[in-house]
């Protein structure tokens, strides 16, 4: 079965500092990978996706993520965090046809930004 692990439940960074949120997945082949963000009082917003090709993908709001097959990872990064980035971040995977088209989510990482 597919699974997604986000090992950090909470992360606190200073405004202007760099950020890396970790995500590891379990799946035999190359899945479709996503990062979503949920700001307070909002729904889930798609930050970026990886389907194939270049393993470094760019997303909205200055975020990027790198797919590393050897590590089964898809970590999210941002070079300089803004106070408005405080939110909960979810890594998700869609596997092969045998798993249907459903997203499997990690537990989420809550990002706090201190000034």
């Amino acid at each position, binding site marked *: 079965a597919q699974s997604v692990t986000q090992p950090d439940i909470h992360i606190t960074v200073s405004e202007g500092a760099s950020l890396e949120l970790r995500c590891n997945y379990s799946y035999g082949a190359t899945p479709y990978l996503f990062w979503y963000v949920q700001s307070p009082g909002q729904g889930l*917003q798609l930050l970026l996706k990886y389907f194939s090709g270049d393993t470094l993908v760019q997303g909205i709001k200055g975020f990027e993520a790198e797919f590393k097959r050897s590590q089964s990872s898809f970590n999210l990064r941002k070079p300089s965090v803004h106070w408005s980035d405080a939110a909960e971040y979810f890594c998700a995977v869609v596997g092969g046809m045998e798993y*249907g088209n*459903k997203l499997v989510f990690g537990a989420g990482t809550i990002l706090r930004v201190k000034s």
Partner: protein
Amino acid sequence: EAGVTQFPSHSVIEKGQTVTLRCDPISGHDNLYWYRRVMGKEIKFLLHFVKESKQDESGMPNNRFLAERTGGTYSTLKVQPAELEDSGVYFCASSQERGTPQFFGPGTRLTVL
């Protein structure tokens, strides 16, 4: 282009009552999904429609939950009778086809007292 909309945004009901949640997907999206996040847990898949047909309902917790998608447009999720453990946020998402991103609605926060 309008996004995925959900109604109501909040619902508070007593145990044993019935609640119906509604989702309007992005126009032209044949795929519609329901997910749920119970307090402190991961977001979990409930079911997937392709047009009006249920493609995958493996995540539906029990037969108190009934989902429909009339004419392949909007969808409803009915919980009857509601139990305390049904409390959580119910998300709806839609996509054009498999492999394309799913776009989420703002969610419905259900509280069962």
